[in-house]
């Protein structure tokens, strides 16, 4: 069958299995291993919310049926659940009881396994690090079908290769997460307007102690307005208010023609968004779902980018030269007129011990571009800027990075290759991405 992930590019021809339990998963791995086709490699897949080709392979083992809670320690907030459990599922059950996930990405339609494999980060990375830093332990099914328990203390090498490991060490079967106590399901949000890039950087630094922060940026603004943005700050409310989480009904029912997204429509949207009435710095109370997952209220929003899909470009630049580098990147993009609806800027905290983890102390910028051949040379130019400044690209968003760029920006790739060889993972687990990156 034809399979693609959230960016709808690329599309692979894959055989998908959905094992119902660990025994069925082991059987599916054995079957893949003993298939004598040209390429019998496989990769685990959760909700398919990575953007590019990280969850695509000739054989795909989807974990959505492995989605049960296994145990919950109400005192410590330790939740053990199967890897296919979605963050939505966890939050719907746990938030009304006063527990929140310590790190959430921009969508709750991701599985726990996927969140660990991509080591996702959230709006609190500068204070709390990424998802895997709150994973007490996990269990991993190796290529042999054997299940290994690992954590930062137990089998630490395997643990740090599996967290942010893009599924390349095996299939995560379940994990124990440490949840955060909250006293409300609401977030107190403040919105600050920044008139240019210097401004928004200064605001990020000034509000370093705020738990959550993220900036939406008008990537088509130029000159003195380059990098003008809205900074959203958030803190958990403290008022014992727990309202039930509603269901959204808005959906993009079909793929819209890509020409609707052009420099004029995008420039108009970006400008209108920037100028929307904002009561500067005034505290507003909004539901956590709305603060963390605004796009989840529109189902299938990826269809807006047309039949050919879109590319997401997310880079991080170390603190030292983040400002000039971002200025250069934004100038190149606005010069090319290839804007994106959603440009997000975020300050990140220090890197962790995972071999392929994306975040490092600096700033990250994420942009969407509808897929068109003309976009590729522009992204290659941006790659050069990112490399010059010692930055890198997020593997969960990537569909096009070169092997050379990967090896230069993820210096621990060789350790990853070693662990893959030691555990036999390299005989079985490959995604289209790992093939492209030479892992």
């Amino acid at each position, binding site marked *: *069958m034809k399979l693609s992930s959230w960016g709808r590019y690329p599309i692979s021809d894959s055989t998908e299995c*959905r094992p*119902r*339990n660990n025994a069925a998963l082991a059987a599916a791995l054995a079957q893949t291993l003993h298939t004598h086709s040209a390429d019998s490699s496989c990769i685990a897949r959760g909700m398919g919310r990575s953007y590019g080709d990280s969850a695509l392979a000739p054989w795909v083992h989807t974990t959505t*049926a492995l989605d*049960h*809670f*296994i*145990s*919950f320690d109400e005192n410590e907030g330790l*939740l053990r659940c199967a890897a296919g459990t979605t963050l939505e599922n966890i939050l*719907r*059950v746990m938030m009304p009881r006063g527990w929140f996930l310590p790190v959430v990405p921009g969508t709750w339609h991701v599985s726990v396994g996927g969140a660990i494999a991509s080591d996702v980060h959230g709006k609190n990375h500068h204070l709390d690090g990424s998802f895997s830093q709150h994973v007490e332990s996990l269990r991993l099914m190796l290529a042999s079908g054997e299940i290994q328990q690992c954590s930062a203390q137990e089998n630490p090498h395997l643990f740090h290769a599996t967290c942010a490991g893009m599924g390349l060490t095996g299939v995560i079967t379940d994990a124990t997460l440490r949840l955060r106590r909250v006293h409300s399901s609401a977030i107190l949000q403040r919105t600050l307007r920044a008139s240019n890039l210097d401004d928004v950087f200064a605001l990020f630094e000034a509000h370093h102690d705020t738990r959550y922060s993220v900036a939406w940026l008008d990537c088509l603004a130029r000159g003195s307005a380059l990098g003008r943005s809205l900074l959203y700050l958030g803190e958990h409310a403290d008022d014992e208010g727990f309202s039930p989480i509603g269901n959204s009904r808005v959906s993009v029912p079909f793929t819209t023609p890509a020409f609707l997204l052009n420099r004029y429509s995008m420039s108009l949207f970006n400008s209108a968004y920037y100028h929307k009435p904002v009561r500067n710095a005034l505290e507003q109370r909004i539901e956590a779902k709305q603060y963390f997952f605004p796009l989840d209220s529109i189902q299938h929003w990826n269809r807006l980018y047309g039949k050919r899909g879109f590319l997401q470009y997310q880079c991080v630049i170390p603190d030292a030269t983040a400002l000039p580098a971002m200025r250069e990147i934004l100038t190149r993009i606005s010069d090319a007129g290839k804007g994106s609806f959603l440009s997000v800027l975020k300050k990140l905290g220090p890197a962790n011990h995972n071999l392929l983890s994306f975040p490092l102390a600096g700033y990250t910028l994420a942009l969407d571009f509808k897929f068109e051949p003309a976009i590729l040379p522009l992204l290659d130019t941006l790659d050069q800027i990112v490399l010059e400044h010692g930055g890198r690209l997020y593997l969960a968003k990537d569909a096009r990075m070169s092997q050379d760029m990967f090896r230069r920006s993820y210096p621990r790739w060789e350790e990853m290759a070693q662990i893959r060889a030691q555990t036999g993972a390299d005989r079985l687990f490959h995604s289209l991405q790992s093939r492209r990156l030479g892992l």
Partner: protein
Amino acid sequence: MKNILIIGANSAIAKATARLYAQEHCRLYLLGRDSAALAEQRQDLLIRGASEVDIAPLDVTHFAVHEAVIDQAVGLLGQLDLVLICHGSLPDQELCQNDFDAALEAFNINALSVISLLTHLCRHMMTQNSGCIAVITSVAGDRGRQSNYVYGAAKGMVSRYLQGLRGRLFPHNIDVVDIRPGFVDTPMTEHLPKGALWASPEQVAQAVVKGIAKRRTTVYAPAFWRLIMLIVRCIPEFLFKRLRF
């Protein structure tokens, strides 16, 4: 807090529905074939908020044990506020039309076992003068189609049975809900290609809970199937027999 008996509890729709009731702190009794999967589900439902969860193995094709199993469930739960029957299988139509044993098995699983269980259940429920019986049938039961008529006939048999039972139980204040899902993406349909009409078990579960709460008689899940099946039922037979679906 309601006492709920779920038969075929390992089916994807049953699981998704049980989760919704667990969040309402209901007390659940799960019957299913795979004990290990039931035990796994029990843990899950307790974490989600179920006040109590009991499990017992049941192979619905062993008609002889039905009475004892139902007695045991009633003994444990006392009052049955809701009985949800979810088990089923999607038989291979081609095999069934050439091999009667296969067709018989399909009828045993999808229709006769349900009727046997309902026979024993009704005895208990009529004494309590309240409660609800909900059975997962299928839109396939609305009209026999050449590509899937063994399954359709079995599900249709259950729908007809429920129609009659509904009248019989009405004076006893017991609701009988016929839930007819369309295409649902579950392990039962894993081998079929999926299109725009397909729904998730979670969507169906929401329709089930809502339909039962509103005391509906027939629930199409998702709701648009009511319109589709209305049209399908209206096609005259001389035309319908020429359609290859």
